């Protein structure tokens, strides 16, 4: 199967062991300077396209009939999570650094997640309170 529609995001001139992931490639080779050193990545929008098409389709089909996609999406989620794990397992530098810095990382993460959850909770409370 020729996945030509996905190809623009992979750069063949990068050595295969050192291949970058998609987001990094986007960052590396498709950006627009918007003054004052700010760079906007246009290809970041590649995920917005299927989302907007999906929402439009759903909106148009709304009056037609009920569509049950629960089962379909769980199957694709499994595929996605498997390939995510695959990328993690293939990432040698990441796996090697785990035992070195793991403990510090866990402590840092506890604070980061705690503060993030509390601030988001407070911000949403404030937004709703203003309504």
């Amino acid at each position, binding site marked *: 199967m020729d996945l030509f529609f996905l190809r623009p995001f*992979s750069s063949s001139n990068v050595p295969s*062991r050192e*291949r*970058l*992931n*998609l987001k990094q490639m986007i960052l590396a080779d498709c950006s627009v300077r918007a003054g004052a050193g*700010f760079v906007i990545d246009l290809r*970041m929008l590649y*995920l*917005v396209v*299927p*989302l*907007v*098409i*999906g929402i*439009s*389709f*759903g*909106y148009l*089909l*709304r009056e037609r009939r*009920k569509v049950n996609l629960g089962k379909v*999406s769980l199957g*694709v*989620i*499994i595929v*996605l*999570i*498997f*390939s995510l*794990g*695959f*990328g*993690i*397992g293939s*990432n040698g*530098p*990441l796996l*090697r*650094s*785990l035992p*070195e810095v*793991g403990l*510090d*990382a866990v*402590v*840092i993460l*506890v*604070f*980061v*997640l705690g*503060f*993030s*959850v509390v*601030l*988001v909770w407070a911000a*949403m409370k*404030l*937004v709703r309170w203003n*309504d």
Partner: protein
Amino acid sequence: MIKYIVSALVLGIVVGYLNSNWGSVDAGFWVSDYVFNGALIVLLFVMGLVFGLDKESVSKMRKTGLKILVIPLAVALGSILGGTVSALVLGLDVVKTMTVTAGYGWYTLAGPLVGQLFGAQWGALGFVVNFLRELLTIVTISLTVKIDKYAPIALGGATTMDTTLPVIVRYCGSDSLIAAFSSGFTLSMAAPFTIMAIAALG
């Protein structure tokens, strides 16, 4: 459902590890890039479809409107503040730890970028902190969703526009789609800038 997701993750890690050591590089690249992005594009379309079909989600979304953008702002502040406090607790360099936590879970960016700025050891920390953030978002979702509806989005950071989005939508409902996606999108755009900006402080 979470057990299927965690099993798929663990199996993926094992197979990816075996493949990277004894398998084919091209097959590995094919799975972690083409299969990953193909599945992601299908999921985004399906989630968009379900969202568009659901009258309630759309009207809830309309009601909240642009106020939804307070979420990425709160996550960014929380992450950087968490970095500051944890650096003080652990006795680490405050500015460098802040750059690590300003990756918002995007480990393939934060690892190399922080590594380039402050050397391999900080790069390793940038890798692991952000990688564990993504991992924890997925693994603990059935618990965090009980704390607060938006807690999984806060945990996910920049990853809520891709890897963790389907899992979040599955657990938090279709009306969380736009909140999660826009938060992940904003934080993904912001991560390189905030890392560089904080690094400039030190």
